């Protein structure tokens, strides 16, 4: 089955990461990189996204398309990246996500077949 992992960052997580000494921040990135390498057999692509301050939202439900600055929900939790995963079942995905060393939230969504 195919799943998409949505990596979600919280404000406090982003602040803590910024506050880290450069060396430790590098180590945090390296851990995330190692996680991607460890699960390369199941990963089918994905990307880190640029920050929510770069987001543009288009709302189409009012007739005319309304373009606004920012993500579609203003909140403390923002999607910061995604990855596609191919796995036998949800337990396999849960097993790999449990060891994710980065942002504090990951949403797992099965892909429509």
């Amino acid at each position, binding site marked *: *089955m195919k*799943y998409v992992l949505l990596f979600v960052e919280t404000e406090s997580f982003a602040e803590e990461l910024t506050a880290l000494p450069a060396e430790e921040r590098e180590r945090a990135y390296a851990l995330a990189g190692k996680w991607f390498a460890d699960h390369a057999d199941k990963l089918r692509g994905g990307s880190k996204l640029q920050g929510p301050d770069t987001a543009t939202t288009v709302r189409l439900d009012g007739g005319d398309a309304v373009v606004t600055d920012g993500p579609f929900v203003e909140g403390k939790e923002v999607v910061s990246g995604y990855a596609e995963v191919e796995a036998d079942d*949800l*337990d396999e995905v*849960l*097993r790999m996500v449990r060891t994710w060393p980065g942002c504090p939230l990951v949403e*797992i969504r*099965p892909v429509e077949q």
Partner: protein
Amino acid sequence: MTAARSAPAPQTGGGSHAELARVVREHAGRLAASLVRVTGDFAAAEDLVQDAVVAALRRWPTEGIPQRPDAWLYTVARNRGLDRLRRDANYRTKLAQLQPPASAEPDDRLRLVFTCCHPALPRAAQVALTLRVVCGLTTAQVARAFLVPEATVAQRLTRAKRKITAAGIPYRMPDPDELNDRLHEALTVIYLVLNEGYLPTADHPHARDLVDDADWLAALLHRLMPTEPEVAGLLALVRLHRARAEARFEPDGGLVLLEHQDRSRWDRQAIAEATGLLAAAARRGRPGPYQLQAAIVACHADAERWEDTDWEQVVLLYDMLLHLAPSPVTRLHRAIALRYAAGPDAALAELAPLADALDRYHLFHATLAELLRAVGRPDAARAADRRALGLTANPAERALLRRRIDWSP
């Protein structure tokens, strides 16, 4: 006692209602496990079993329980499946391969339990699914037992089954390193079923059936996982509650507190068996919350009279329980035991720091009232009882509190 479970049809040669419930429990889960294995489709298999159970509850009370209930249920499920899925050739082939579950085949119901209690499902759905799929309850029976509209239960079940299929929740045993967490989920579900059945009342008479279901589920898990001490602990806990259930209620349904129960009505044989089960589990040297809760209940059950209770031991067990699973409610129970081990002043001191966390919990205020009365502050006690009264809807508990407010000094 399981009359509520069955169809309203009269019993004519069909065995008692309790027997009917027992037979359905014994076979529904096995059939579900077989159907899931062969079809690989949890939701469809579950629907077919439910159809067969509903048909059995309609027909067995008048036609009698068949010689081979498993074969009967299987045949109904299979024919329904063929009817319903006539257009799906692939499905028909699978169903055609289906054999009646042989008694020799390994018991797959454990996998069934782990799928129903998967942590990706909401708790209420885990409970409803387990009762329906593993115990063979109908949706209507689950709804009655939990005092929830049938449509609500049906919707929970539909959503849960959709998620099982759509999200790829597997039908397999958890890996060894996941087993502890997953077992904990399953035990929580059984514990919730037990708790819901613990306080049957006049307007909630079907709750007591749930204790039978909790007992049966815990016994099934214990049979399939005999080396797991927490499973044995939960089974002992269920059995210890059941052994004393008769003494907890007056003939009119009124609640009898432990202190005033007629202990000659306790089932001493059942208590001894449960205590033996617990001792065997304890020898594995892996204590856990269910073993400790059962040990606390066993302390009470072992005492011939209220005065014989080993309160020091009870307090010690609560300390261990709090160490493993800290919770304000457990601290409240420890304080109650402490009253008898060290006096009401010591217990009152323990309650003070819980006031915020348990402000909405009626038993906190009821306990406070008892302690205040014991230290000679009747006015404050009455106020606490009134607060408790405002927080519980249970008729038996309300009657008890009212008596205290009206009659105590």
